[in-house]
Structure formats: C-alpha cells, structure tokens
C-alpha cells in the first residue's frame, strides 16, 4: 500500500488516481479533501461508504457538526478526516510591525493604510506567490468571506447568494487594490517563495493557509504573528484532509485498520503535531492540546467557537469543475483587472456547476 507521487497541493496525483479508478486498479487509499471534491471521484461507483466505521468508532460524537455536514455526500460518509487547516489567516512579520509601530489590521481600510505606509518605506506590504495558479484564488476566497460574511459566502456555493451581488463586486475591487501592493515577481514564486520575503524581513504580510505555520517552523523562523484575514474575525474558513477506501482496493481490511488509526485520538495527535495542523476531533484534553505549538493551540480554540465555512480552493465547497472555472476566472483577472467581466465569468461558472449538480 504505497506509491508516492511528487508535486504539491494534490494537483498532480489526481491525474494518476483518476485513470486508475476508472481502470479498476485503485490504490488502497488516497488523500481526499472533505467536501464536494468527492463528487469528482464519482464515489457511488468507485468508493466504499464508511457509515458503518463511523458508527463503530463513534466519530459522529467527537467531530464537529459542521465538519460532519461537509463529509456527507449523497447520504454517506466517504472519507475519514485526520486534520483541519484554516485558510483565512493573515501572517505578518513581527519585526517590521514593531519597527513601524503597526497592529494587525481588523478591516480592509486599516489594511490599505498599512500598505501605503510600508510602500513608502520600500518594504513589500503584501507578498503573494501564484506559481501554482491556486494561491491567488485562495486569497480571493478569503476576501469573499470578509465581504459576504459566513452565511453569504456559504450561499454562493449552494445558489442562495447570487454571484451578481455587491459583496462579490467589492471583493474583486479589494483584490484589484491589493495587486498594487504585491511583489512584482509573484508569478514566478510559489507560496513558500513568497514566505521568504517575510523571513528576510523584506515583506510584511501574507494571506495563506496555516500550513504556512508548519513551513515557518521547518525554516526555523519564529518572528511571525498571525491574525484572521481582515473582516473575517469569528469565521473559520476550513478545509480537511481525509482518507478514503476505494471499492476495488487490494487490501481493504488493512486499509480499514489504517482508517481507524486516522480517526483515533492518538493517530490524530501524532499526525498533526508533525504536519502543523489541528486534529479534526474536538475531544482532546488540555494536556494533549499542550503538545501543539502556540499558533495551533489558538487555532483549536477558534475552531471550537467560530462559524465554520468550507474552503472552495481546497475542495470543500464546490465540485472540481467549478473550482477549476473559479480559479481560471481569478487568474485571468490578475492580468486584465476587469471587475465586470470577471464577475460575469464567475456567474456563468456558478450557473454551469449548479445545473450540473441538480
């Protein structure tokens, strides 16, 4: 039960997994994001429902309700969540903030005031790396959460919130304004390349998921601070890695054993202290929580009380074809900066996807 495929963010291995699923030669298990990404694998045909396992292990009692809602597709559970990542985090370099006497911005006006001040000082106010093509849409997703709120944002993906609404226009305008303050070489850098700016104290702020925390730790950089993305206080933009069981897995019993470990407390603590994410389970004792670093502990507290919204770029909120169309529209926007045209493209993407999932 092995076969590693290099290449980050799960984008590369999908091209290998899907033909294998269709050909009837799947691996024992693979990483699946919680949420509508599972639609892309036609689970009724290719995956085994895990409802029995959930019942035996009692997971429906220790996983948060909002997460359980995400894990259900067509009435069944398809994956066992091992962790939770947060997407709407603003990372900043404490040294720069101390030098210029700044505090983390709570809204976009404060954010742009900070940008203006830092630009005058020759520091990159906001760093971004878009070599993977998903980092900029990730940023846009968090801006959408800030302009539409938790319910408004969730409604975008169910059809309740129209994509023609003001909140979307405002989000595009904010993204357009941010582009005036980013590092000019963002197209050549991946998100960690952008993070180097913070480590070198040449860039001040970055919006990226909390795997950044794990990367900072690996780089030995401790001078970072964090805050929710401006305007998203009290909202937790979540994504979750899960493992699934294909129908034709060569070793189903062993895989079920692995899935049990994934969902167990010991398994999740062991996995997440290394990966830099928080466990999906909410039943950790304070001593167990103390094994995690300061950011992760504050993250666990937020996860327990904030409103949880699903990330779209990381497979939770929408089916894969919609995610691709969303990404394409934003990537085109980076060059054209055409708010009206991009909004129209987003409206069309939503119509296509919602019609397909009826």
């Amino acid at each position, binding site marked *: 039960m092995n076969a590693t495929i290099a290449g980050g963010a799960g*984008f590369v291995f*999908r*091209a290998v997994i*899907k033909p294998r*699923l*269709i050909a009837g030669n799947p691996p024992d298990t693979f990483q699946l994001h919680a949420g509508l990404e599972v*639609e*892309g*694998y*036609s689970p009724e*045909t*290719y995956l085994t429902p895990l409802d029995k396992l959930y019942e035996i292990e009692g997971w429906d009692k220790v996983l948060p309700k909002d997460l359980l809602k995400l894990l259900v597709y067509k009435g069944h559970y398809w994956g066992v969540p091992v962790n939770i990542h947060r997407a709407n985090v603003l990372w900043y370099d404490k040294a720069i903030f101390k030098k210029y006497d700044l505090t983390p911005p709570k809204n976009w006006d404060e954010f742009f005031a900070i940008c203006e001040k830092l630009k005058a000082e*020759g*520091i*990159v106010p906001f760093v971004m790396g*878009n*070599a*993977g*093509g998903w980092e900029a849409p990730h940023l846009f997703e968090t801006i959408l959460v800030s302009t539409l709120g938790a319910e408004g944002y969730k409604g975008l993906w169910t059809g309740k919130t129209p994509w023609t609404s003001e909140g979307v226009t405002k989000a595009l305008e904010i993204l357009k304004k941010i582009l005036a303050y980013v*590092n*000019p*070489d*963002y*197209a*050549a850098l991946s998100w960690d390349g952008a993070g*180097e*700016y913070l480590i*070198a104290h*040449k*860039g001040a702020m970055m919006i990226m998921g909390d795997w950044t925390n794990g990367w900072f730790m690996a780089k030995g950089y401790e001078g970072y601070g964090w805050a929710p993305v401006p305007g998203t206080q009290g909202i937790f933009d979540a994504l979750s890695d899960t493992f699934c069981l294909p129908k034709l897995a060569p070793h189903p019993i062993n895989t079920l054993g692995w899935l049990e470990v994934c969902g167990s407390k010991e398994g999740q603590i062991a996995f997440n202290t290394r990966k830099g994410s928080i466990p999906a389970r909410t039943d950790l004792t304070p001593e167990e929580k103390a094994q995690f670093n300061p950011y992760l502990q504050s993250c666990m507290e937020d996860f327990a009380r904030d409103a949880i919204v699903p990330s779209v770029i990381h497979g939770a909120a929408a089916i*894969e*074809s919609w*995610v*691709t*169309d969303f990404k*394409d529209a934003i*990537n*085109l926007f*980076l*060059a*054209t900066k055409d708010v009206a045209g991009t909004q129209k*493209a987003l409206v069309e993407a939503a119509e296509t996807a919602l019609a*397909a999932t009826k």
Partner: protein
Amino acid sequence: MRRRWLKGERLVTLLLLLPSVIAVAVFVYGFIGWTGYVSLSNWNKLLPDYTFVGFKNFLKLFAHPRFQIDLRNLAVFTALFLTGSLAIGFLLAVLLDRKVKGESIFRTIYLYPMSLSFIVTGVVWRWLMNPGSPQMGSTGINLLLEKIGLGFLKSGWYTDPRVGIKAVAIAAVWQMSGYVMAMYLAGLRGIPEELREAARVDGASEFQIYRYVILPLLRPITLGAVIILGHISLKIYDLIVAMTGPGPGFSCDVPAYFMWETTFHANRFAQGAAIAIILLLMVSLLIVPYLIFSVRREAEV
C-alpha cells in the same frame, strides 16, 4: 513457377509486418478514433457518459476565453520558434561551414541543448528568467544585465503578461537551433563547390551567392525543419509545465496544458478529447501535405 515463388515471399513479408501493422492500427489509429468518439460525447464527470452531443464540445471550446488565449499564444510561439530556430540555425551552419579550427567542438556545443529534455530546459530557464524584485534583488538574466551595465534591458520575462509565451519561445529556440544547424550543415556540405565557384566567376557577391544559389538548394531541408519544428511547437506542453505554468492571465498557456487541466482537474474528459482532436487537425495540416509531396516525389523517381 515464378508466380508461386513471388507469392511465397510476399506472404512472409506480410506476416513479418503484421504485428507492427496491428499495433499501429490499434494503438495509434484506434486510439485516435476513440478520442474522436469521446470528443463527440458528454463525458464530463469521472464516470463515463457516452451520449452523443455532436460538436457541442468544439463550439464551447472556441467560445472559451482561455482557449482563445491559448490559440493566440500558440500562434505567437510557433511564429517565434520557427523563425528563430531557422534563422539562428542557418547562421550557425554558415559560420561553421567556413572550415574553422575546432569546428567539431563548436558543433557539439551547439548540439548539446537538443539532448536535454524540455523539462530540464524549462527548469533552468525558469531560474534564468526569474526577474527577482526590487526588495530581494534581481536574479538570473536580469542580474547579469545589471552587472554588465545593460540594466535598462531588464524585463519581467514570463511574469509579465505582455511578454509571456515569448519568453518560453526563447528557451525553445535555444534548445532546437542546434538541431537546425546540424541539418543545414549537412545540406551545405552537399552543395558542390563548383556551383559557388561558377557564381563567383559570374561576379556575384557572397551575399548574392547565398540568396540565389545556396538557399534555394537548401529548400528541402528548410521544409523538413519546418515540419519537424512545427509539429513540436503545436504540441508543446512539458516546457510550459516545467518553466512557467499557465502564467499571469494565461499569457504562457497552450492548448496541450489546458487539455491536461480540463481533463484531470475539471473532470471534463470530453472537452479534453475535443482539444486533442483540434491539435491533431492542426498538426495534420502540416504533415499531410508534406507526406503527399514526398510520396509523389518518390513515385516520380
């Protein structure tokens, strides 16, 4: 007696060729046919769905903004790649034809890039063309230009949407002009010295000799190079993946890359198949006339 002997030999030949013929029929033409079939179907999720939808996928593609940009990029890339490789390859061949000392060393050096895979070329040129930034300092080519005082030539290269695919074309020309040079060198060697002598006696300048005597004689080689480079150019994919990805505003995107993304990320298998068929048609526009031309020529001989 004679007829039976001929028949026996023909049978053996046929049997020897049969495995290859079957393999090609299945794995090349069979799969092309299957792709064509899928491109006319509605297979846009992981689960196959073969309902016939006519040319809907093709029409949607040509209306798709990303595909339109891809076609434009492909045209720009092909134009730059072909003219660049042919011009530089020919120039290098002419220079090396002067019977200079160490000709074989130079020839080897110019041919080396061709032995690299596009992945290696892509990664190296991605580093070379990474512009850096005012805060972190320039890198790669920009750094070199700064150091030799040509800082005003600095560019965003592939990070600048206005440059985009042209930067990729530079890397591709670097890789393949050595190959064109080798072809032209062989061709130049095949031109008898008497022709050049005769032209010189008639009072032609060196430039005129090249223009009116040598280049026309090299036409078959130019044609061959255009065919080979042309079909590489239309299918270009791994260079884009290794070097730039789709680029800001899709300025480096090409149809083959879009085909991969739409098939394996958006699960739109039918749309991916449609792109493949369009690429096939574009390449056949190049290859088929060439094949007809060369078969006809052989028949004449």
